[in-house]
């Protein structure tokens, strides 16, 4: 035990945080800043300015990856809480307010677990199978339109790309099951492969009718085609297609009632039995990212993507008002707003604090002020949000898209909490004997209707 070790051991937790922080801020910080400003910064600016397309691509990929993990966290938390509420119990509620940090901590836990490969398993395949599954799930994010203009890459074969890439996950599942050197995993992997493969066909066929109607494979243009009122959404023109897509997508994502692959009362964890640590984390997150993808797809294809159900501008035109347009131009406002920015927060904090102070006689004044400040923040953010919603169309689109997607995620979680599992042969029978003919029927009827209407 060296002196430094013992000194470190005698520090309290606060000390252990403050001393490295001081070191970073006072010594490392200035050095790095100077380096960046003089040497690295200009070089980087030149490099990025020369290749804008690549920059956009990298930013898109970065955004996609950075979005997928928090989305998975939110969906995991939602699943735990929603299923718990449906089971008349409270889900996680210790870690963070109402258990909000539970999935974050679960992610950290998964990172710190022991990382081992079972003896006899093929080490390379064992490691790379979850990566493949996660990769195919995340790659589909690239073509999903989150809002008008907010799409990773507006491929004109977007839907085809999505189904192709999403279908590669079955390879990952099979590899995971095989490489685990475990009969349970093998069984699980084969089940998963059979299931995913047999539900691919109704999935793709159910949207062909929609493609005929829309005339394009690009998800962005399909979203644009549903602008206006909610009656323009494709779900009203292709109800059977939507239903088939919904069922087939549940099976694709291995969700209850089609979660044979990870049926945890029969074959422990299916193809993921031997996985632990971050490898399991990959598989786990991939499933939840898949859930988000299929609900985002459902929303994009059938429920209007980023369009609001009502068209405010047409309502206003009916009444006689001009459409609302807000141009945000802070620079033109002058010195006045600066003054306001100093005075208004303080004044509003005090004003909002007064009711809190008066309502409970034992509340100290500083507490009332803090609460007033929080309320002011809430109101200010709300107003800014409203401004952004009206002023920037992509903001409004993003809000609607996210809202609708998470609504459908809720529906998927709701189904998980309600239904028992379907047996594997019943599952496959359902796909081949019912969904496939129904999808073909949908396709023929749509094609016939198009020909009749055109002529």
């Amino acid at each position, binding site marked *: 035990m060296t002196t430094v070790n013992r000194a470190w051991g005698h520090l309290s937790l606060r000390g252990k945080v403050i001393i490295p922080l001081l070191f970073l801020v006072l010594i490392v910080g200035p050095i790095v800043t100077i380096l960046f400003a003089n040497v690295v910064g200009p070089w980087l600016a030149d490099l990025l300015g020369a290749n804008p397309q690549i920059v956009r691509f990298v930013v898109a990929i970065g955004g996609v990856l950075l979005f997928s993990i928090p989305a998975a966290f939110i969906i995991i938390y939602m699943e735990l809480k929603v299923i718990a509420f449906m*089971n008349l119990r409270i889900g996680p509620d210790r870690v963070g307010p109402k258990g909000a940090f539970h999935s974050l901590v679960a992610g950290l836990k998964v990172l710190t677990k022991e990382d081992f490969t079972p003896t006899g398993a093929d080490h390379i395949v064992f490691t790379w199978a979850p990566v493949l599954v996660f990769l195919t799930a995340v790659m589909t994010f690239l073509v999903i339109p989150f809002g008008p203009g907010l799409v990773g890459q507006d491929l004109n074969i977007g839907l085809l790309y999505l189904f192709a890439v999403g279908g590669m996950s079955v390879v990952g599942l099979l590899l995971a099951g095989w490489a685990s050197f475990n009969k349970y995993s093998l*069984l699980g992997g084969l089940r998963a492969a059979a299931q995913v493969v047999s539900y691919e066909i109704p999935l793709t066929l159910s949207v062909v009718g929609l493609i005929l109607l829309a005339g394009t494979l690009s998800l962005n243009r399909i979203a644009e085609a549903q602008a206006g009122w909610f009656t323009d959404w494709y779900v009203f023109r292709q109800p059977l297609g939507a239903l088939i897509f919904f069922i087939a997508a549940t099976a694709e994502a291995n969700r209850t009632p089609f979660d044979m692959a990870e049926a945890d*009362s029969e074959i422990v964890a299916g193809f993921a039995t031997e996985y632990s640590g971050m490898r399991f984390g990959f598989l786990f997150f991939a499933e939840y990212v898949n859930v988000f993808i299929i609900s985002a797809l459902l929303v994009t294809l059938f429920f209007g993507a980023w369009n609001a159900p009502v068209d405010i501008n047409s309502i206003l035109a009916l009444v006689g008002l001009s459409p609302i347009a807000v141009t945000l131009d802070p620079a033109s406002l002058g010195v006045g707003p600066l003054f306001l920015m100093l005075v208004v927060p303080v004044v509003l904090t005090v004003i909002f604090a007064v009711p809190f102070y008066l309502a409970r006689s034992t509340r100290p004044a500083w507490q009332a002020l803090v609460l007033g400040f929080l309320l002011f923040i809430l109101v200010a953010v709300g107003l800014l949000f409203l401004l952004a919603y009206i002023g920037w169309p992509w903001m409004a689109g993003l809000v609607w898209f996210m809202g609708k997607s998470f609504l459908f995620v809720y529906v998927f979680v709701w189904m998980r909490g309600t*239904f*028992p599992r379907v047996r594997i042969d019943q599952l496959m029978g359902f796909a081949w004997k019912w969904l496939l003919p129904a999808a073909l029927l949908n396709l023929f009827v749509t094609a016939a209707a198009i020909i009749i209407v055109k002529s």
Partner: protein
Amino acid sequence: MTASGTPHQHPSLDDPRIMLDDQIGQFEAVPPYPPRTEREAEFYSLRDGEMFVNMGPQHPSTHGVLRVVLKLNGEQVVDLDPVLGYLHRGVEKLCENSDYHHIISQIDPLEYVSSLFMEWAPVMAFEKLLDVEVPRRAEYIRVLTGELLRVSSHVLYQGWMALDLGGLAPILYSFIERDEIVEMLAAVTGQRMLFNYFRIGGVNGDLNHEFMSRLGDWMSRAAKQHEANIGLLNENEIFVRRMRDIGRLDGATALRMGTSGPNLRASGVPFDVRRAHPYSVYPELEFDIPTRGGNGGGDSLDRYLLRLDEVSQSIRIIDQCLHNMPDGPIMARLPRLLRPRPGRAWAAVEAPRGLFGTYVISDGTDQPFRMKIHDPSFVNLQLVGLLMKNNLLADTMAVMASLDPVMGGIDK
């Protein structure tokens, strides 16, 4: 033949954390010694395309520590061999070394879900040996608490069954209802699970205000709750399709295998110990024996629905008990140290899983010479091998769950 020692002994005694290369793949389902019986020889020989899968003692849904060795041909189960003994606690031997009063607490953990019935049979056998007359009030209390426990056990069965098929919600609803009943019993017995309530010659404590108020609350809601329970899963297509025509058991086979209880009644045989060999005050009570699966035998769905029928009969019995409860002492006076006359006694009760009986041989001392326990789940579990031939893997769980085994009783 002792050369290979115990099966699955860890070969490396130096450092148990290291597994050598030639030990990979040796922890198979097949035991390392040659087969000892014909059945073992038939089971452990593989044909083309078959494989062993070991549903090990640690498994999320084998109802306790049960090991099932399955011979699979793809997804189809060709044969099945349950391996018991993981929960063996030597209860019968413990009973041989305990006083007669002590045995009641030893024998509770046999079917921990419905432990009052486990106490009932030995206590009846001891009363036969000692020629003790149990006061009528005590008998009525026994029936009341027993039927309450039967309701709670069947409600829990519902949730269990759904859990094994994949539905996560019904088991929690079952536990909420079971909690209510178990709290009620805790008010009168002092414990929520292993009650230790019956005594030789009566019961431990009288019904108190807490119990009666909770029971009154529960009874006022019982009928409606039962309706809701019936409607919970009966109409769910997925559930019904998983259970219909799975594990069809006809009455003759059931009788041949020695089944009893709801599994037997769901195969069309109306046998109930409460009516066939009446005990306690059951002759004075009015209730029916529901039966299902008259033609062709009963499948898993019949077994599930029959238990729901039994719940409504139990509610009827509880109602009658409450109305006809006599006054009087709750326990016959007995000495602390009991030395019954040398002899044998058999007593059987209708536990929620079937016929639970004890056969006691006493030799005049204060500890029984031998106490043989006949547990219903032990016999019912043998049906799994019979019912599972040529069904799919997922159906194994459905069938095993529908037979409602409790490992405590199976392994004693």
